[in-house]
């Protein structure tokens, strides 16, 4: 997948960004992408643990080019949070 700039991601609708994240989840976690939505919760719906979260962060970094800091990772509860994070781009100092 071609890595886009953060500006490009911010201009894409949430559903398109979600499709990218869902594809990652499908490949890495064998989840059905068609069942994933913005309000899908990591803990309650996907039974994610901390290492799953790291795994997702590593894959997002590789696919999207966004480094997800550990502090921000802990604040992600739904797929919508990940989508918003990608659209927002890197944290400002």
């Amino acid at each position, binding site marked *: 997948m071609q890595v886009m700039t953060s500006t490009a991601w911010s201009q894409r609708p949430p559903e398109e960004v979600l499709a990218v994240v869902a594809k990652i989840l499908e490949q890495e976690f064998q989840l059905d992408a068609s069942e994933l939505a913005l309000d899908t919760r990591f803990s309650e719906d996907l039974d994610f643990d901390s290492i799953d979260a*790291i*795994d997702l*962060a590593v894959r997002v970094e590789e696919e999207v080019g966004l480094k997800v800091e550990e502090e921000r990772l*802990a604040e992600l509860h739904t797929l919508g949070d990940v989508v918003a994070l990608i659209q927002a781009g890197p944290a400002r100092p």
Partner: protein
Amino acid sequence: MTVAPAGTAAEPTRHWSRIPERGSMLGLRITLACYRWFGRWVAVPLVHAVVTYFYATDRKGRAASLDYLARLRDHCERTGGPAVRANLWESYQHYRAFAVSILDRVALWSGMDGRFTFAFPNQQKLEAEGEAGRGVLLLGAHLGSFDALRALALKDAVPVNAVMYTAHASRINRIFRELSPDVDIRILPVSEDPVETVLRIHACLRRGEWVAILADRLEPGESGRTRGVSFLGSEARVPRAPFDLAATVRAPVYTIFALRDGPARYRVVAEPLSPPEGASREARADAMAATYAQRLEESCITHRHQWFNFYDFWDRGADA
């Protein structure tokens, strides 16, 4: 004096972390003073004398030691390895080796690391990882001396973070803090919140630091999150998290054991632990755990008295 193996004097169903440490800080201080003033030749016989008492009074620990030696003997017979005896004398030697490892541990932390010699065949390879700015995940075990590894790393100014279940060893850690006040800086305590622990480990790796985890024992509450490996002919359970992490992070992973080859002489054995290409995370973690257990076996065969899990390692129902 704290020379009784962790995991001794336990009821059969108790987890290793609930087994109290035995001995007193005073004894340890006296032994350390002997080491400092008179040298190793006085301190080592002293710990041997003390460990004789503990060996005589520690029925559960003796049983665990004899069980380990019997499994090792049977494994060596099956695989054509060296002859191993599983008798009281060998078990006593097992205890003595543990006592010496404690003495060495304290001596290393007391700034006496100059009295030790280290061989580290793969050191340049590991240092090259550090120079490239890559964090390295090191998977060790309660085998030999993990502290020998840390002392070497400190001497060469390599940032190493040791992940430790510190509540278990509060007494001996208190001594270490007194001996080396900055020691806590490099300890990553296992938090009540596993998410926090994993995130902290990941952050260290990203900063290009080394993170060392003892990957053979289950931490409290980990009984449901284990991975089966073949170890000395039977299935044993190791914690899932270190191997899941190893299979997930994009950092080099090494197994690393510091084995005592002679008086005050250690050899650090570090080998890359690479996951199979293209496999799922689960398959990568399984393969890495199997290789880790195989390397543990190999070190147990060459250094049979340096396996320091003095509880029923194979009985994973003991986490209750």
